[in-house]
């Protein structure tokens, strides 16, 4: 059981998280955030292992990981 939360206001949609997610379950949202970015979002939370690779690579400290 694990999941991530993306703080959409900090996220700039660079998708380094998606690139380094071993399960490939992070995608870009199609909803703009207040800064005009399409933030990242987790698509299949049930596959998340809570490895925090996404959070470690996030340049905006936008990801919180739960496990």
């Amino acid at each position, binding site marked *: *059981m*694990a*999941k991530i939360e993306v703080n959409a*206001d*900090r996220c*700039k*949609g*660079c*998708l*380094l998280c998606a*690139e*380094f997610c071993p399960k490939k379950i992070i995608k870009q949202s199609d909803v703009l955030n207040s*800064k005009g*970015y399409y933030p990242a979002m987790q698509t299949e939370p049930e596959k998340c292992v*809570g*490895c*925090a*690779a996404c*959070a*470690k*690579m*996030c*340049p*905006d*400290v936008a*990801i*919180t*990981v*739960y*496990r």
Partner: protein
Amino acid sequence: MQKVFEKPVSIDEKPFSYCAGCTHGIIHRLVAESIDELGIREKVIGVAPVGCSVFAYEFFNFDMCSAAHGRAPAVATGIKRARPENIVFTYQGDGDLAAIGTAEIVHAAARAEKITTIFVNNAIYGMTGGQMAPTTLVGQKTDTTPYGRKVENQGYPIKVAEMLSTLEGANYIERVTVISPAHVNKAKAAIKKAFQYQIEGKGFNLIEVLSTCPSCWGMSPIKAIEWLKANMIPHYPLGVYKDGAKTE
């Protein structure tokens, strides 16, 4: 479920103003995590440079000041000499540290100043829009080297970690990068150690972090990481260049 990863206390609420995918943000977080884990947030005084991280004091949640371009090591020296009990660090880019501020960093290292320096090398001037940096690679195109950096004209890039490690005053010099979770873990360990040394009264300590500049390199964040790996690491090899604790 428990939180296993969250924003460190030493990172303030204000969202970063860096470009999307710029690895400055990762480096900020590693500094903040190190400070939190060492329990020194209330003892730290940081010095922000001129460059992309000029507003670093807005993103960190502890006492900080800004310095004139290149002068952060001198400012940090003044702070540390006035308050030796505090933990003082500078956060500087390549233009700031290795061009205009070369004298300041060399002499801070030579004096074995008991400070920690986080040196972010992305081989380009980001804030002013993509000009040649002292660390720009031979052949690399920038706004001011539109045909690529040529040795006949601009000479060679400066290898800061190698250069400073020749100084007796340097205690700990390591070059790291943040282009994968594994690299990030290693960079974190190095940064934390560079603060730990200062807590133990040892200096000078510098961590050079190879970083990306997707905007000025004209690449996507992911392409930038690949470019860094293929071009920067061969020229700027990762590793420990000086570790006083080992050699002493």
